[in-house]
């Protein structure tokens, strides 16, 4: 009853996807392992023969500007994201989201790639990233592709990645003048340390007008949610209490909240989402000066 039988240490992305395709099954990749190890230890994961450790792959730990994009390797631990001046400059909502997760021990291990693999609809890192219009670089044995972040999620715990695919990293547009983002969330004192609700907002400012906005919310459906109607509503509006009120109404109309037993009712989430939206928009607005 060992947690695994074989443990592989690929050094390149190619080695990793080949190992996932050809090693003794069942085979799965492990990055930070903060969720996977617990699932294995507690018997919540189907038995595994081979673990393919992705943390030795240099490319997955890259964090750099590539042309007009910021590249964050899928294996970069949360702590490095939080401390990185590049991420602080270009992805404030991601810094705020990653800084709130766990303690330093977990943040040292947990990765954004693992967030995708675990595919929770309200993972802080994913919500922080989603509002930044991030794309994922996916590696398969046959080659690589860029895919919008949201397409990676099929449902709670289900990603669209095939068994022999891994995420190499995420790319997001560099922040331009008068653009900014923000993230906030509400936790519950009791029970599992997952947010009751989290929300990230990105906007571009043109004087007193919102030129464009992006809103992501979790959990508001089976996958991380982009509030596109609300984004459309905000575009071109003067930033004012009336606009925020309108955005709140729009968000309530398009987001589908559900009741989680012993955690939060859908009604409570509706109360919280208007608070979180206002806070995040106001914070991003001030930052976008």
């Amino acid at each position: 009853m060992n947690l695994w039988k074989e443990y592989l240490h690929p050094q390149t992305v190619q080695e990793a996807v080949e190992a996932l395709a050809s090693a003794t099954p069942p085979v799965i990749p492990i990055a930070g392992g903060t969720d996977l190890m617990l699932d294995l230890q507690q018997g919540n994961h189907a038995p595994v023969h081979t673990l393919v450790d992705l943390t030795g792959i240099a490319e997955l730990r890259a964090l750099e500007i590539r042309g007009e994009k910021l590249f964050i390797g899928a294996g970069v631990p949360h702590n490095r994201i939080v401390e990185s001046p590049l991420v602080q400059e270009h992805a404030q909502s991601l810094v705020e989201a990653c800084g709130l997760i766990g303690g330093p021990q977990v943040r040292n291990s947990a990765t954004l790639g693992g967030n995708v693999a675990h595919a929770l609809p309200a993972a802080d890192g994913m919500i922080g990233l989603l509002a930044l219009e991030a794309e994922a670089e996916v590696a398969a044995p046959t080659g690589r592709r860029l895919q919008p972040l949201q397409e990676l999620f099929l449902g709670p715990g289900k990603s669209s990645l095939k068994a022999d695919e891994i995420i190499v990293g995420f790319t997001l547009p560099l922040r331009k003048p008068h653009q900014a983002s923000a993230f906030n969330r509400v936790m519950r004192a009791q029970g599992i340390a997952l947010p009751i609700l989290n929300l990230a907002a990105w906007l571009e400012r043109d004087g007193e007008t919102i030129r464009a906005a992006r809103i992501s919310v979790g959990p508001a459906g089976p996958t991380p949610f982009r509030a596109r109607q609300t984004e459309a509503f905000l575009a071109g509006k003067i930033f004012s209490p009336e606009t925020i009120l309108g955005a709140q109404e729009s968000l309530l109309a398009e987001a589908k909240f559900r009741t989680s037993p012993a955690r939060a009712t859908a009604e409570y989430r509706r109360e919280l989402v208007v608070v979180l939206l206002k806070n995040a928009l106001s914070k991003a607005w001030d930052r976008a000066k």
Partner: protein
Amino acid sequence: MKKTQLSLTVNGQTYTLAPIPGETLADLLRKRLHLTGTKIGCNEAECGACTVIMDGEPVLSCSTPAERADGKSITTIEGLAPAPLRLPPNSANLGGVPRRGEGGAEGGLHPLQEAFVTHGAVQCGFCIPGQIMTSYALLQKNPRPTSADIRHALKDTLCRCAGYPTIENSILAAAKALETGEPVAGPEVPPSAEQGQVIGRVQIRPDAVEKVTGAAIFTDDLTFENMLFSAVKRAGVPHAFVTKIDISKARALPGVVAVMTAADIPGEHLHGLVIFDWPVMVGVGERVRYVGDAIAIVAAETQEIAKEAVALIEVEFDLQPVISSAVQAREDGQPQIHAKGNLLKHIKVRKGDPEIGFAEADVVLEHTFHTPATDHLFMEPECSIAVPLADGRMEVYVGSQIPYQDRTQVSRALGWPEERVRIVGQLMGGGFGGKEDIAGQIHAALLANLTGRPVKLLFDRHESLIVHPKRHATQIKVKLGAKKDGTLTAAKTELYGDTGAYASLGEKVLTRATTHSAGPYKIPHVHADCYAMYTNNPPAGAFRGFGVLQSAFAFETMMDNLAETLGMDRVELRRKNALRVGDETSTGQVMRESAGLVECIDKVSGEMCQVSGLSRAELFKARPVPGAPHLVHAWGFASAFKNTGLGGGADDTSGAEVELYSDGSFQVRSAAAELGQGLVTIMQMVVAEELSVPSRQVSVLVMDTDLTPNGGPTTASRQTYVTGNASRLAARTLREAICATLAEKYDLAPDQIRFSAAGVQVNGQTLSMQQVYSEMKAAGKDPRVLYEYHAPETKPLGQGGDMHVAFSFASQAAEVEINTNTGEVRVLRVISANDVGRAINPLGLRGQVEGGVVMGVGHALLENFITKDGYVVTDRMSRYRIPSIMHMPEITAIVVEDPAKDGPYGAKGVGEIVLIPTPPAITNAIYNAVGVRFDYLPVDQEKLLWAMRENTRTA
């Protein structure tokens, strides 16, 4: 891609090891390198106790694959001090006192370790390696952390003793010392108002050094040659009859050495602390009463095989309807789960006639309250190791709050005389009442007896949560009458307590809940009725506060209700009715002395005004927060009392033995338990005081049924009082014996012999303690005294008179912040005044006060052990949250010393009172802030939001 060898550096030493499939870094460090300073508290990445540094960053070794450490450099707690002190495994039995020649490690400590020691951040010590390693990583990156930085870094490194304030201060002090090169600054803790040579002054725990170096040995850190590992098949259903047990597959599994069921128990089948009603294992045809009932036990060559074997045991049940609450258990037509029925005990308090009091009252209020079961969540899960000896005896290594009771229960199950069993108590990673009952002691002993090999039984956190007794869930109805001027005229209370499947200490706990259910007030007419009910939930037993936490929540909420109804100041209402000397409690006990409640009330209310800058009239009003219109602040207030000692007519006895050794050192011994609360420090201090020697000259040995006299149970805030007295009187008697011997030899009156730190002065010359030892031996006197201390006699409930030898009193004020947009609650500040009689060790006392407040915050806002139809929902640490450093309010500790005549130097108990007023102080503050009254715990933020909205609508 596959590694055949792992190469890693640990604490500067390079190791090359073959990988083991499935191995975690924690297992590699603990099992292969024997670096047992790294602790496993949860094995689910929740508690942080297993934190080590990997290439400069803190990681959780319990959820890090060992293979990931290949090529990396690891630092564990053992690697922090340049010359770590390693004491022999049995040093736990010395209360951790480094023997002479083994000490001197202090010089080698890292400033963080030194600060944790001197500031008193070390209590049970189990979490300390994780705390220090996480702090170390912080200081490496951020040499000058602020309090906010520290809280952010230690957010997920839990301490159940909740020494968070001192942990924070320790880190600040260490950072300063590292920066300036100056020595680590000590803590600011005022001494007692009355100090002796040792008593009343700040004293460092005797086991603190080994607890910060990783040298401290807890039970799971021990390994014996040829040792087997065991696991228990649990029923997994809350109520059923067992119809079939098939162990054949388990037995056939290679590596399995023994499988036992109830049919194989050689002795008694039932165990228990007061009532023997708890089956060691449930056999075919017998009744399962909760999910944690044991069906079979397995011993195997490895832990993994033992667990695999348990999974192969097949059990068939005839399921029965489930009783899931105390109220349901008393209804007609319910199944009766014990032969005598579902009622464990109807407990009654009768004083006067409440109907008369209610008739005299101008106001009568009535309300019903609910409190949930809660878990102790001591950081160290239960572990027992049974070791059969060649001479036919059995040793059981275990951290237990009642070693002699363990001996009784283990020997009963084996069918042996008690003397054949020896309980060798180990350091305990917290207990809080949760290590009074049998956990794995009997099962380990049965398997060791059958196999003839040592057997370890270690609970994981999941098993710990499901199996051991909890705090009683209660329903409490309070009816309270008062005159217009606030004089209380009558109280009537009705309590339902859910004692779960087995009695444990249920009757005692709920008796305390009942006798304290009308608060620390003078009320002429009190009736209380409590129904202690069996249910199919996990058993409920002792837990810090022992029932009084529950009844104080109900009554202190009613007191605030009453103050509001009468338009009276809530502090004044309590002050007016507070028990004073000359007043009589609900059970008819007249307070003759040591009733410091009024002083507690006055000091807390004064401090509240002082720190807030508000007048008394303004204190309890809601205050908006400038610049944050969604936030509201307010203070809340509560008081409480709690008995010291068993009382109720029980023989409250403790034995202690003090011996002078040839090297001039003393040892004090008792089987009282050290669970982190600091008893060993108290014992050391009182013996040093009585013999006028420095405390380092006194070692302490506790919890060994062969070597230490029975100290009774470590419960009821009793040990400072009873074992403190036993130690003091044993030392005093030894001193008298020394005087008598020297007086005879030197032909002096005994009172002309003086004891001093340098030795004993006789005729102008000073004899060292080595010389005194020689003189005693030469005179044919054994320099050793065993003293059995009997606390003053008490009366059983219902007979009036003294039910308890003493009461501790407390008042607390809590300031909360409510987010009116989300319902979130933060506790900003708590002022806690406790009448402890006498502060023997102000440093240990501070830790108890702060830890109690934080645990109280947990009970108010976080903690809820949830069962559904007898099944445990909160069966992982991730589902049962306890306070982290983020929940720590700013705490002001005020010590009130109204001495108890028979307590050692006037001391009475403190372990429980410190937590009791916190929940109602917080919920009263919530009401004062936003007008929402909570009649249940813990506070639910969503419900708070809805209630605030409802108030707005109806306003």
